[in-house]
């Protein structure tokens, strides 16, 4: 990854409006969208196929827990943070151990979380 190549973020979120907002903020901080996924399968496929540098992961995709996506990200040592309306302790282990941003999020908080993905 060269310095002028923007950091590519995978947005995994089933709620269209939130996904749109996340994309907006990602682009606003100067990163690129590495892809958007609204289901576990889509997310796993993008992690497999696309070049990405980090991810924003919604804990629940259409009622399906996204723990396996977290595992896949960990396996590739890709930084990510979990986004959820659930309490963090209500989440299963691979999700509860990750950096967490509670919905509804604050834009500043979201921005700092996104920036932190590059470190």
């Amino acid at each position: 990854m060269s310095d002028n190549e923007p950091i590519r973020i995978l947005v995994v979120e089933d709620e269209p409006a939130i996904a749109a907002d996340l994309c907006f903020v990602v682009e606003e901080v100067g990163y690129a969208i590495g892809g958007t996924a609204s289901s576990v399968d889509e997310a796993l496929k993008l992690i497999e196929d696309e070049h990405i540098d980090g991810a924003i992961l919604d804990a629940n995709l259409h009622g399906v827990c996204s723990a396996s996506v977290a595992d896949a990200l960990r396996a590739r040592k890709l930084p990510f943070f979990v986004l959820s309306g659930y309490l963090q302790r209500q989440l299963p282990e691979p999700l509860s151990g990750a950096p967490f941003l509670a919905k509804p999020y604050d834009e500043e908080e979201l921005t700092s979380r996104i920036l932190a993905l590059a470190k």
Partner: protein
Amino acid sequence: MTADAAWIDVTERRSGRFFFGDSETAAAITAANWAKSPLGLPQTWPKRLRVALEICLNSAFPIAILWGGEFCLLYNDACHGLLADKHPRALGLPAREVWPEIWDVIGPMLQDALVGGRPTRSEDLQLYTMRNGRRDEGYFTFSYSPIRDDDGTIGGVFCPVVVTTDRVIGERRLRTLRDLAALSRAENEGEACRVAASVLAANGYDVPFSAIYRFDEDRGEAELTAATGVLPGGRVAPRRIKLGDPDPDNGDLWGLDEVARLTPGRVAIRTLDARFGEPPCGPWTTPPDEAVLFPIVLLGQDRAAAALIAAVSPFKRLDAAYAYFLDRVAAKIASAMTDARAYAAERERAEEIRVRELALRRAEAELCEAQRLGRIGSWRWSGRLDDRGGASPYLARIFGLDPAAPPPSFAEQKGLLYAPADWERLDAATRETLRTGESFELDLPAHRADGAAIHVTIRGEAVRDERDAIVGLRSTIQDITERKQAQERVELLLREVTHRAKNLLTVVRAVARQTARKDSPVAFAQRFDQRIAALGASHDLLVQNEWRGVELHALTRSQLAHFRDLFGSRIHIEGPTTIVKPGASQAIGMALHELATNAGKYGALSNDEGVAHIAFGVTSESGESHFEMSWRESGGPPVAAPKRHGFGHMVILQMAKHALGGRVTLDYASSGVVWSVSAPLDNVIEPAQGED
């Protein structure tokens, strides 16, 4: 025989009189003045009479000789007892004068022997002779044998006699006592009295009448319980007697208050005087003139419970044998009453036990019902792994076990009722309770015998013996499956609602942020308001449909509500009834809202003739079903693609694409904007609900 005759001659010669021997009667005969007797002087008595008399006088057996047409009486010493006070007056008297009271019986018999020459034989013949001034019930076994006179005719009757009175009466009394002893056990004391009375009634000779009174200490009364030979309620046997009442008509004529205080073995004797009116006679021809009153004292008591009034036979002296007989009768009544009371007490105890058992059974049934109602089973268990313990019937119901079979032992429950890990938890809890005596409560998943998953709450406590040592475990098992399921549903719903609320808030914030980026504050207020309202409208539809999806016609109408006047004229909606998933409904709804807003501002709905055409449906291409939807404008002002895309554009294009996972295009054709969607059916349409 010549020697005998010579002996008589000698005696005659020695005294100048006849000599009949040394017996008392012989002396009396010698001393008697025979001049007035029909027999005349002994010297004139026929020789055969004298011979017979010799035999009679020398016999130790009672023998009488009745001589001549008047049956003049001669007898020996052995007859004295039988004659009683008739001796010695009877000597030489005609039998009719000796026994006028029984002449109607013996007269014809004697006549028969004398005239007919036929000997008679009577056994235990009942004769009421006068003895010592009163008639006496007597029984006699005797024979009348003719004796020849010197001239060969029958001159008299030879009569050996045995008094069988004691034997006959003794047997009769013994029969009464035996019958009393043989009575079956009575139900109660009153019944015992009545049954005893029925035996006494069969022996009116010894007990012409009788009455049994039971004492009522509290009322100071005696109540007639049974009577024989006398009408209850009359003067002799009133139904109730006030103890000690001196009233000469209705008072305590018998003096029962005294009898009530008598100790066992003591009796009171009452003369049946004029106060009693005319007492009943029983089988006798005259009424009794006295009665014996016995206190009836039950075993284990010191006061009389009753009194027996036994009338004494008018034809029998109250001698020791008679008194003993009556005393035994009273004793038998006392023991029959004692038995009856013991039996009644026993029955009362049995009844008490029966009532208690019934109550116990009822309580048990109630417990069963309560357990059924509360879905609680109970189990008592020694703490040993192989012990089956004792289970309540509802326990079998909870686990779907055979209620007739013993419950599985605790060890057998592992894997059968509880998954091994859950059983281990239960095992640990029970062992802790058996060790420390502290109760436990556990919620555990369990399994019915048919494999169905259930959930139970188990509460256990230690069972202790009288020395407070822990000897086992008592537990209740409550089936909380339904409650657990309901609770889980509520928890799930709560989590879900919270999650959705937060999600929605996030959406609102995102919309606000994105709206704010482009518009001026005034425009923001309007746009934001519209967008939130559109969001709200689709949310309403979702809620109405219990979050299961939204019908697409309704969704389209709600998002285009602003233009509802144009429905059917300039806004056409075509397509089958289609339920879309919650996620898709929000994306489609927001896209429709943005399309309509743009159309109203710049497109087909901004002039007076433009038309918006909305169509949706399902197509099948090479075996795969797709959801197709399009928004097609025409007749509006010429379209120019915007130079800069805002949030609306992103919603219409990216968001829809993101949410529906298919192909979404937005074509700014100059004749009108065209938005079209083609997405895999499963992403959009809720699969058809099954029957259940």
